[in-house]
């Protein structure tokens, strides 16, 4: 060691050839320190403490990764659901009794003002629709020789099959003659048929509903779930039979028969609103209601508005999940504050030194805020990569398409930086407020 020092002393003497004189420095330093200089100082300090920096970032990484992944999953699930509903057909209009101002499903059917005559009047309008399908529904116990089952029994017309894209597995669907004659026939949904007759032949057998013997003329192919109540769990009878023999659908004045709903499938999506307003006008006229729609005793719903409602629900759900993930981001921010406070204490003498050589409080404040921001930004980017990777992995499994949207990226990274800024200010202020004399003496 001694030789080393001697050598350097020797060098010092040689170096001192009077060429090595520091000229006076003219820059005043009155201007605030450049931001990129502060960033460089902060980066150097973070790189110097790699482990600690990474641990500090961990909270933000997990937070951002979960926000990104959950937003992607939520978005994917939402897309999946709407795709399923769109597959059923968005061109379907449904007329139901009840006031449009009360959108709750509990109100529908409360006032059963819709009649079969209304349906016939709509048919008579010759609208650009594929079919007009009035239905009158009830619940009943289906009793077969070997089993029985409670199910929704829909009184319908042949148009129902067209509108709902129903295909038969065996037998035939209802025809106009059976509707006109209120024939005691029934078409079973796939699940209902299976529950009542197992794998055996259902067509030709008899089931009883409310002591009415009905002959099974057809069984529907399995359709799977989609939208409200699956057709697989329903049974279909002529609407006239449902009204007259099963569920008592005569109107109070005794002149007509009530229906639960009238469904129409509009040929072209662009005709939707036109068809809707024609039906509204017709029904207001028939029901002697004002033309402004304020007294309507029916409402016309379309799949599009249902879809909109559903989308609202799924995005709300997604937002809720993201908010929960956001909480972990806030916790990550508290982690940043914690470590930054430790860091300020550990680096008290560095802060004292920087102040002694001319750093202003603002320079120190900026340095620590930038450190917090760099930590949260780096953590945010790593978390983004992790979350996007997770979402991509889910897409690869083929269960759901989970795209990571730009808004999700901006939201999560922006939020993580806001968290870093918020929780970085307090430690930075502590650092900036240190008195250089005490800070330099700090052990």
């Amino acid at each position: 060691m001694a030789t080393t020092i001697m050598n350097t002393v020797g060098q010092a003497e040689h170096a001192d050839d009077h060429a090595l004189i520091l000229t006076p420095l003219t820059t005043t330093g009155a201007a605030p320190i450049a931001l990129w200089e502060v960033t460089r100082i902060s980066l150097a300090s973070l790189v110097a403490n790699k482990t600690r920096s990474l641990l500090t970032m961990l909270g933000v990484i997990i937070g951002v990764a979960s926000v990104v992944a959950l937003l992607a999953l939520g978005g994917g699930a939402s897309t999946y659901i709407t795709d399923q509903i769109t597959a059923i057909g968005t061109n379907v209009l449904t007329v139901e009794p009840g006031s449009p101002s009360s959108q709750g499903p509990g109100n529908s059917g409360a006032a059963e003002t819709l009649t079969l005559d209304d349906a016939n009047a709509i048919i008579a309008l010759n609208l650009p629709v594929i079919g007009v399908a009035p239905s009158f529904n009830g619940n009943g116990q289906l009793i077969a020789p070997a089993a029985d089952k409670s199910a929704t029994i829909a009184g319908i017309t042949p148009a129902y099959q067209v509108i709902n894209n129903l295909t038969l597995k065996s037998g035939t669907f209802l025809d106009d003659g059976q509707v006109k004659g209120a024939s005691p026939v029934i078409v079973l949904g796939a699940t209902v048929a299976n529950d009542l007759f197992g794998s055996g032949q259902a067509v030709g057998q008899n089931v009883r509903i409310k002591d009415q013997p009905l002959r099974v003329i057809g069984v529907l192919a399995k359709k799977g779930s989609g939208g409200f109540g699956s057709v697989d769990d329903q049974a279909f009878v002529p609407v006239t039979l449902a009204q007259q023999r099963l569920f008592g659908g005569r109107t109070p004045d005794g002149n007509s028969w009530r229906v639960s709903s009238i469904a129409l499938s509009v040929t072209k999506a662009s005709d939707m609103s036109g068809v809707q307003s024609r039906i509204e006008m017709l029904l207001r006229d028939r029901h002697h209601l004002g033309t402004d729609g304020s007294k309507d005793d029916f409402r016309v719903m379309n799949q599009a508005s249902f879809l909109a409602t559903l989308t609202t629900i799924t995005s709300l759900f997604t937002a809720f999940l993201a908010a929960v993930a956001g909480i972990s981001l806030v916790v990550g921010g508290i982690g940043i504050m914690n470590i930054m406070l430790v860091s300020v204490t550990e680096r008290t003498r560095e802060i004292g030194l920087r102040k002694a050589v001319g750093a202003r409080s603002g320079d120190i404040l900026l340095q620590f805020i930038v450190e917090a921001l760099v930590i949260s930004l780096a953590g945010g980017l790593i978390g983004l990569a992790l979350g996007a990777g997770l979402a991509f992995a889910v897409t690869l499994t083929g269960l759901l398409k989970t795209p990571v949207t730009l808004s999700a990226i901006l939201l999560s990274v922006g939020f993580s930086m806001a968290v870093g800024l918020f929780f970085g200010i307090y430690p930075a202020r502590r650092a900036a407020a240190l008195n250089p004399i005490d800070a330099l003496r700090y052990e």
Partner: protein
Amino acid sequence: MQPLMISVRNLRKTYQMGDVEVQALQDVSFDIRQGEFVSIMGPSGSGKSTLMNLLGCLDTPTSGSYLLDGVEVAQLTANDLSLVRAQKLGFIFQQYNLLPRQSALRNVEMPMIYRGVPAGERRRRATIALKIVGMGSRIEHRPNELSGGQQQRVAIARALVGSPAVVLADEPTGALDTKTSVEIMAILQRLNQAQGLTVILVTHEPDVAAYANRVLHVRDGLLISDGPPARDAGSDLQPALGLGPQAERDGVRRNRLNLVATSPGGGRWCGRSKWSDERIG
């Protein structure tokens, strides 16, 4: 006659310690001219640290005036004091206070960041400053790769690099062994003589203080003497002054070693020679 660098008039500093008012410094006045090498001596609690903090613009006096390089700095705000420190002062500390994970070059560059010096110029000046203190071949070494004496050289380079009006050295050899202390003092002395640097040295070691050409004694917050260094015990130490580098080194070392053996407080040097690994973190 060199121009005045520091002019202190009736400087007073009072601390409030609970209910008690402590007069750390009472009515101190003196001048320091450019190119002087001044030691401030005094036992602990004498007020020399307080005086050092005031001279270093780290603190403001309760009353009195302090003219530094023509600027009245006694009642400046904290931000303005930062600016004065950046422009006019260089600090050397007992514990070197280097940034532990940064190279010598980065450490020396550091003060210039706060003066807005561009990176290229910073590097150029820091390299020169490191060469001046004999560390030109170790500019990329980190403090933990350097000995205590080498670290203190880097710290001296850092103090020099902004071409300060005054360099303040607070017990610069306090953590060094005798031989290294001599080397460090030789560097300061050379800077003072060859480059006309104004150096103010705080120490309680008469041997170290003897390198200066003027010693201010502080006791109980008062300036009790102001004059050339005492010639009694340390008189044969003085040949160091004005001698050539080689002779200076050899001579001082021999004398100093002699002193360690003979002075009544000789054990102190050995006691203080522990190398502190303490670094700012």
